[in-house]
């Protein structure tokens, strides 16, 4: 997993609440056998509308999604996180996230930032008035900054540490590499092996 320290990028204002994972990535995309290539499925239904915010030229390359409350509800599919990441989002801001979505996002290195709804509204206005405005999500200082706006946010210490270090579950386990190797060294010889005989 890539480490997340601080990220600066343009924002996409998504003025919708209760965006469930079926809207983020529809079920028929779940047949895919990879973790990438989901970018075209992201918000697939809405993107058929040329006026949808993601389709507007001034939003191309934006990497911070600013969404309404209760983002990521519904099915637990991890594909929703992969779709957002595949599309290029590094962070999602909302006043409230569904628990499983939040867990999945932090596991994959997508930073989910909880800010008060007033701050979310302020960010929406800012980026709607000037799409070129850059938003900085600073995990070290635990702050979101944009022109004339600074807002602190909370994140539990363990999740923050893992993001800062870029440690996924596997990365954490691999810190015990020496223990695993020493366990392997003392395994009895009679244990089964799949090696072809």
């Amino acid at each position, binding site marked *: 997993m890539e480490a997340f320290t601080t990220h600066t990028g343009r924002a996409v204002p998504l003025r919708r609440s209760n965006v469930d994972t079926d809207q983020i990535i529809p079920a028929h995309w779940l047949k895919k056998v*990879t973790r990438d290539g989901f970018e075209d499925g992201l918000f697939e239904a809405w993107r058929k509308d040329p006026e949808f915010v993601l389709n507007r030229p001034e939003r191309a390359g934006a990497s911070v999604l600013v969404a309404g409350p209760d983002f990521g509800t519904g099915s637990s599919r991890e594909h929703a996180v992969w779709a957002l990441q595949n599309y290029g989002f590094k962070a999602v801001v909302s006043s409230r996230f569904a628990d499983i979505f939040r867990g999945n996002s932090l596991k994959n290195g997508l930073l989910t930032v909880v800010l008060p709804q007033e701050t979310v509204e302020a960010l929406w206005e800012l980026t709607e008035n000037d799409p070129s405005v850059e938003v900085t999500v600073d995990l070290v200082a635990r702050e979101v900054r944009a022109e004339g706006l600074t807002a602190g946010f909370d994140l539990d210490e363990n999740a923050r540490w893992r993001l800062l270090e870029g440690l996924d579950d596997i990365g954490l386990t691999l810190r015990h590499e020496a223990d695993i190797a020493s366990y392997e060294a003392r395994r009895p010889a009679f244990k089964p092996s799949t090696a072809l005989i």
Partner: protein
Amino acid sequence: MGRTLAEKVWDDHVVTRAEGEPDLLFIDLHLLHEVTSPQAFDGLRKAGRTVRRTDLTIATEDHNTPTLDIDKPIADPVSRTQLETLRRNCAEFGVRLHPLGDVEQGVVHVVGPQLGLTQPGTTVVCGDSHTSTHGAFGALAFGIGTSQVEHVLATQTLPLSPFRTMAITVEGELPEGVTAKDLILAIIARIGTGGGQGYVIEYRGSAIENLSMEARMTVCNMSIEAGARAGMIAPDETTFAYLKDRPHAPAGDDWDAAVAYWRTLRTDDDAVFDREVVIDATELSPFVTWGTNPGQGAPLSSAVPDPASYEDASERLAAEKALEYMGLTAGQALRDIRVDTVFVGSCTNGRIEDLRAAASVLEGRDVADGVRMLVVPGSVRVALQAVEEGLDKVFTAAGAEWRHAGCSMCLGMNPDQLAPGERSASTSNRNFEGRQGKGGRTHLVSPQVAAATAVLGHLASPADLSGATAARTPLEV
């Protein structure tokens, strides 16, 4: 204080233990198949990681494989993609694979034991809930999710929090005609589909000790249907005899060392289980399900229950919904339920003893008019053994279809499915709505009941087949 079998196996696999953290457990055997592995390999690739222990990893194709025309390209593009992806991934990461057409191919939970890879005191995982099957050898074996599959591929370990332990003691002799399948269906009906939640179940008692290895696998296989994380049976002489001389069983001095260790894998007399259930084997009879979860079962000799008889409101509602889906009425004798399809196979009952049992009932008899019977061996090895014994001829002579090995109609991911409204007697493990095909209705049964049902066209046990139904002279095989 003494320890249970599950605790002993657990303790022997702890790589690291720290206060307030899950234990890091070493995994002895990792089984893979095409459905739950693609994103795990993809994750490895993206992170630039490798498979840590290819010598403890093995893959087979089973869920999507066709059971007819296996030499032709697979028609369904999704199935084809999953199989091709597994082949590519195994080649790229150096994982041993038994693809469709290979002599060791078959359902993952049939292949592991028959190769002698599943051994007492090992930890076995697979991205599949019926991994509990391997517990029949005294292994701690459980299903895992795709991100855990990736974790095991990369590290050969898993961080896990301890399970609770449950003992299910079955004493006495199983009556004539009562099988391991009847026993486990009766256990699930007794403790409920959530009864084992959070537990590793250890099956013990004289009735369990008297079971063959294959019958023990049938019991452990369905532990997951009781909600348990895993099921286990202490290894004994039956286990050792089954393993001896299998391709991957220890040999020479290693065999002696292994058996000496395996003999220590018994629950200590002073060990305490978190929960205990006692079952009297002598009271059991052939058991079938009438509903849409494996806990909704009853003795074949009884009737469809009246939902109103349930005190628990949610159980009552579940029974009402099940009867509606199954197209049954309360009070109807289970023996009066007519089926149009019979499926013998799956990781529950697709091994050689199961095929022998079904064939012995079918021998010299015919599948009833209007009934389609599919016999799908659990692996190619099982199929070859059955052919050697002439069982395939018994099946085809009776009018059943003898198919190629795989999961097949157990979950209908391949073309073997029930049509809407069709009703099956199936030796598999799940009777969920639509499990065997959209709108399909499933009754879970033993191989013997499946065969008798095929002959009579309604749910039946071999005891219902008086000599009169033996219409033909038994086939010479």
